[in-house]
């Protein structure tokens, strides 16, 4: 069993890259390997948005990520600087910045670039998915 870290830099529905990352993540798990961490970076933070409402007959990528993360207890980190700039906030950030609501899906957590460095150092493979 090997460990993988995925860096996801694309927003859902803007390019194919976030969907490619999701399919790759499924294949890693199906092969019996471990996901050390998912790191959502730059526009990739939109994958953690609970406010995405695609048409009902279209694939709901943020909720699909959430299901995969919760089913397999994956550490899914959303870069704090990327997220705050783009309006992706959890309850703690909502309170800290006196915002009116939070939108980050449960299962994802806010974190810093140190966690990306940890993934680079400790995962067997790091694979980046950029738009």
């Amino acid at each position, binding site marked *: 069993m090997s460990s993988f870290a995925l860096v996801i830099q694309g927003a859902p529905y803007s390019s194919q890259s976030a969907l490619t990352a999701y399919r790759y993540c499924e294949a890693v798990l199906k092969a019996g390997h471990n996901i050390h961490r998912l790191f959502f970076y730059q526009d990739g933070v939109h994958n953690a948005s609970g406010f995405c409402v695609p048409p009902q007959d279209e694939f709901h990528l943020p909720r699909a990520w959430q299901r995969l993360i919760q089913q397999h207890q994956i550490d899914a980190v959303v870069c704090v600087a990327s997220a705050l700039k783009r309006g992706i906030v959890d309850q703690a950030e909502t309170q800290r910045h006196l915002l009116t609501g939070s939108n980050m899906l449960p299962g994802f957590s806010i974190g810093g670039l140190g966690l990306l460095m940890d993934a680079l150092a400790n995962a067997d*493979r790091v*694979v980046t998915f950029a738009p």
Partner: protein
Amino acid sequence: MSTLHVINKSDAALWSSCVATLSRGDSLLLIEDAVYAGLPEQQQNVFVPDGVKLIALAEDLAVRGISAKIRPEIGNTTYSGFVALSLAHERVVSWQ
């Protein structure tokens, strides 16, 4: 130390940077819109050195309707093959 290179777009400058770094034993995987580079009329863009495998992601070929049209020397693989290729090489470089 072999590398899996992953490329996802048909950008000429990106391609030339990528191809210049390929070494014997490496693999070059075409995904997303980069699979169009596997069409015969695109051959001049995807010349790779000897000893480098050129592979396309089957699902991305299929959704673009070009599975049967790509050059015969280009292999194809599934997502599980993509994962296996990632482990068969020491590192994965995504060109962007």
